[in-house]
């Protein structure tokens, strides 16, 4: 684009300096805290972190819930996205707007709504007890189920949006062609839709997985101290114990998990293409 390559570099310089000085450097300093102990550089903080049974439980719970939310939102997301792209363009816009509407409401407000809905005198329990299905209300709040529901509602729109835009780029005739050639719906999905939308799935999956893993408000309000996740544990370490070493260990773990999830999803997507 530029005759002299240096012009491009010069133009990128201010942003690069800004990002390096105000983002990369502080993040580097923060994360390096986790590799230090009294004797100097060491992996001991990581060994110590995983030596605690409570920390392992929190780590596995975070991994499990984030994977579950990503998986379930992919299933619901594909169904919803397919339904949306099958609509005529005019109503497609309206339905799409409905899907994105929750994103415009603060996560705090959305999570508080769940606090009321899932409560002992909330909507869900009133329906269950009122219809005679249950004698006593279920304990839903402060459980993994509550955190799962909250996170799914929070991040599902991101998956749907990614998949809708992937499907819109799919050749219009691909699905009818596969059907005409005798493929059943499962084959259509596995061999036509999935390979053609894998980039949307990678983007959506990474967003939902990373988002669920690093969400603070939802696990704090719907899970509390009984259902600690890495992010709520991090907050506890900093504000209560002033323990920045553990906090940077957790921050590093979260970052590694996010990058791994992205790599893994990309790998899965390309593996399918190679076959």
């Amino acid at each position, binding site marked *: 684009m530029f005759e002299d390559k240096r012009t491009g570099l010069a133009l990128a310089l201010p942003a690069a300096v800004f990002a390096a000085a105000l983002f990369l450097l502080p993040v580097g300093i923060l994360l390096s805290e986790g590799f230090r102990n009294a004797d100097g550089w060491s992996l001991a903080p990581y060994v110590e972190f995983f030596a605690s049974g409570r920390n392992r*439980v929190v780590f596995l719970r975070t991994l499990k819930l984030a994977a579950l939310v990503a998986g379930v939102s992919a299933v619901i997301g594909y169904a919803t996205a397919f339904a949306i792209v099958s609509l005529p363009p005019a109503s497609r816009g309206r339905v799409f707007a409905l899907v994105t509407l929750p994103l415009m409401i603060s996560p705090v407000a959305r999570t508080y709504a769940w606090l009321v809905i899932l409560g002992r005198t909330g909507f869900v329990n009133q329906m269950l007890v009122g219809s005679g299905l249950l004698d006593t209300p279920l*304990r839903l*709040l402060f459980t993994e189920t509550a955190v799962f529901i909250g996170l799914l509602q929070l991040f599902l729109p991101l998956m749907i949006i990614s998949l809708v835009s992937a499907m819109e780029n799919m050749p219009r005739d691909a699905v009818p062609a596969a059907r005409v050639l005798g493929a059943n719906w499962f084959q259509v999905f596995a061999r036509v839709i999935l390979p053609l939308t894998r980039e949307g799935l990678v983007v959506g999956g990474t967003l939902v997985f990373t988002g669920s893993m690093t969400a603070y408000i939802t696990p704090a309000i719907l899970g509390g101290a009984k259902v600690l996740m890495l992010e709520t544990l991090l907050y506890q370490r900093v*504000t209560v114990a002033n323990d920045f070493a553990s906090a940077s260990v957790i921050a590093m773990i979260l970052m590694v998990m996010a990058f791994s999830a992205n790599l893994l999803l990309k790998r899965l997507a390309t593996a399918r293409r190679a076959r």
Partner: protein
Amino acid sequence: MTRRPAKTRLLAAASLSALALAPAAHAADKTLTISVYSFAQDEFKEIVYDPFEEICGCDIVVETGNSVERLAKIEANKDDPVIDMAVLSTHDAMGAARKDLLQPVDVSKLSNYDKLYDIAKDPLGDHLGIGYTFYATSIVYRSDKVTVESWADLMSPELAGNVAFPDVTTNQGPPALYMLGQAMGSEGYDLTPAIEEVAAHADDIVTYYVRSSQLAQLMQQEEIWAAPVGRFAWGRFKDNGLPMEWATPKEGQTGGMNVMVMTANNGNEDLALQFMDFWLSTEVQTALAEALVDSPANAEVEVSDEVAENLTYGAETVASLKLLPPDVILDSRESWLEEWNAKVLK
């Protein structure tokens, strides 16, 4: 001693007031920097800060935050203190004192010192902290559902699945565990039996709460029927439309105290002492009590029954409080947390 940050702030304050075309009410040659809890700052400004600025002809710079942040800041500026006086819980103040961040308060210069309740006069020893408020901690409960007469009732079958307990990381956590231990017959300040008791009933406890506002909401939503809570939060419960009662357990009530401290070598001792004395005066303590901000540590304060109902008030109440000693909390806090994490949150 150089106090450059204060000067910078002074300049900023001066230019701001010039911008607002405000008359230079304060001579602004003196500045007092205080570190306080972020709660009720509007009331404190009206009752304490603004009137004191009028009296001293100085500017008050207020720094707020949670205890961990504020303590970290005092420690970081140890060699050139920015904060002149701070208010802290007794155990946080003791922690600061052990790190040599504090100096004794010269109580001979506090004209209101003799008016304080005895427990507020010297809770840390050496006059390192002067109590300015305290609170009782007991159990709030739904009187239409249960009766609570002992701390042990929290773990009763009637309350199983209907009770919340303060998280061990909160200021209410260890005192509540202490009283639960007392009810179980524990001796001294060993919280292990109480932590094990909570662990044994983990499935019966709805949540370990962190904030009293969160607790008030759970009570309102009928998620819980009982929980240990500080008296300062009682106002949030008593008018929630449900039959609420404040327990007087047979083992007694526990609680906590906050103290004023003087940072070491701040070079601003006279002004800080003048400010402390003002805060402890009958007039200011009465106004703070009537605004339901802080229970008075000044024994001369008299308030109406209606106001007293929301506070920890009166010599008898004050004398009956079973407080955990600050050095015990400070020395054991980490081990309690570890034990709690291992047994209760396993």
